[in-house]
Every structure is written in structure tokens, then in C-alpha cells.
């Protein structure tokens, strides 16, 4: 979904597609579209000739960004936390993650 980020963490082969979050293969029920995306993504395994290759797939989402927008039902917990405590945004940007404060988290 954000192929540049995937490439930065060292994925061996990346098939990039600029689709909205939550629908990486396409619209619900769009069988032909989903199939085309899947097939093209699998073909990148063979098209990528060197480690870290990113190949942008030739698919365009059929809606405008405004029409395609679909937020989660409730803002994610980290978003709510940073809204309450904006100074934590600096830690988030730097990926300065506090150690867990409860048993069971790792």
C-alpha cells in the first residue's frame, strides 16, 4: 500500500499498488479486478531481478480519494492518545516506543 515503506524495511520484492487502505486487492465483488491484481503481484516474483526491487503495478483505483475514503469506525488508539497528549507525536515520529506497561504485551 505504501511500497516505499515496505522497501525501506528490506522486503526482497515489492509489488506497489496505490489503493486505499482496507482494500489492497480492489473493490468487494470485483472478481476480475482482484484476479488481475493478484496475478500481477505474483508475476513480480519473476520480474524482480535483484533484492529490494519495487515494481509499481499498473492499476488505478476507480474512485476519487474523497469518494474512496473509509476511516475506521473509531479513531485508532494511538491517534486518540496523540490527540490527548500532542507532545507524544515526537516519539511516534521517531519510533521511540516506550516499553510495555502491562504483563502480556511484548
Amino acid at each position: 500500500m505504501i511500497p516505499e515503506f515496505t522497501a525501506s524495511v528490506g522486503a526482497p520484492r515489492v509489488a506497489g499498488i496505490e489503493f486505499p487502505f482496507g482494500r489492497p486487492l480492489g473493490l468487494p465483488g470485483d472478481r476480475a479486478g482482484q484476479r488481475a491484481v493478484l496475478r500481477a503481484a505474483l508475476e513480480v516474483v519473476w520480474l524482480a531481478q535483484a533484492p529490494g526491487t519495487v515494481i509499481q503495478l499498473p492499476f488505478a483505483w476507480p474512485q476519487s480519494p474523497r469518494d474512496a475514503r473509509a476511516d475506521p469506525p473509531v479513531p485508532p488508539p494511538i491517534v486518540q492518545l496523540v490527540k490527548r497528549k500532542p507532545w507524544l507525536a515526537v516519539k511516534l515520529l521517531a519510533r521511540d516506543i516506550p516499553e510495555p506497561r502491562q504483563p502480556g504485551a511484548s
Partner: protein
Amino acid sequence: MIETLAGGQPADHGGLARRVRRHPFVDGPTRKLVRSWIEHEPAHQIPWTAVARPLSACRVALVSSAGIARHDQCPFDQELERRDPWWSDQSWRPIPLGTTEDDVGIYHLHIDPRFGEQDLDCVLPLRRLQELHADGLVGGVAATHYSFMGYILQPRQLLTSTAPAIAAQMAAEAVDVALLVPI
């Protein structure tokens, strides 16, 4: 047209970060966050295995970061993340071939789960993969596919426990190609 963005040389993280500005479906704050994370990411040695067979002779398994769990499995623990938003459930679930949207829930607090709940192939295209196999384009479809929940800021457990367990299961099923489908 296929556009190749990178490959074959150390990743230019500055260049990668600048490209994130162009994404039409990523909002401004998320773009800023991802650019920052790319710039903070250390260089990695990229694992690489050359492909020995054509796709038509390969067995394929899918991995989704959508947080998919079957109704007969323990859901991903969303309360953990609600209590401490820096942390999240880094476990995994096996998703047997034949699983459909009627069999699962999607436990991911950062997306709208309705699309995958309506049509699982939006996020884990098992039926599409089976169709490619039926048409002879894919050599085989693994019996087991996988999901984890992709909001993970510190992937310690993912790297030391979840990913090795998934890899071991894939090796046991003679998977040739694994496709990670992000959410």
C-alpha cells in the same frame, strides 16, 4: 506500464521518503509519519532467494496483515492496544484454504474492516488464487494461509516468534512463494 522504483543497490531512504508525498490515498499526517519512519529505518541486508521454477510450477501461500481470525479461533487482542496504544497483539492465525468472509472476523483498529468482512478476497484473495491455479497459472495453492495484525510499532515478537512459526509451517507444506498482502 511497469515502473521499477528501486532494486539492486542499497535503498535510498531519502528518495523513498520523498515518493511517499505522491500517494493519493494516504492523508497528510500519515504521509509525514511514514516518511519519518523511512528516514529513521536503518539499512537492512535484504534476504534473497532466486526463483527456480515458473509460477505455474510453484505452490503459493498468502499472508495478510489485516488481523483475520476465524470464528473458531481466539480473536486478535484489541483490548491490549486500547489499554496501551504503543503495543499490539503480534500473534498469528492459520487460515485454511476454503475460509470465506462468513468464517472470520477482521480485528484491525486502523482500517475500515467492512470491505474484507463483505468479501474476504479484498484482503486475502484465497478464491482468486484458487482460480489462478485452476487456470494453470499457479502450480499449487497451500493448504494453510496466514494472518497477523499489521499495526506493530516494535516488532520484537513478530520477528522472533510469529514470522519463524509461519515460515516453519510454510516449509512443512512445501510452499515455494509467499505473498504478503498488506492492509
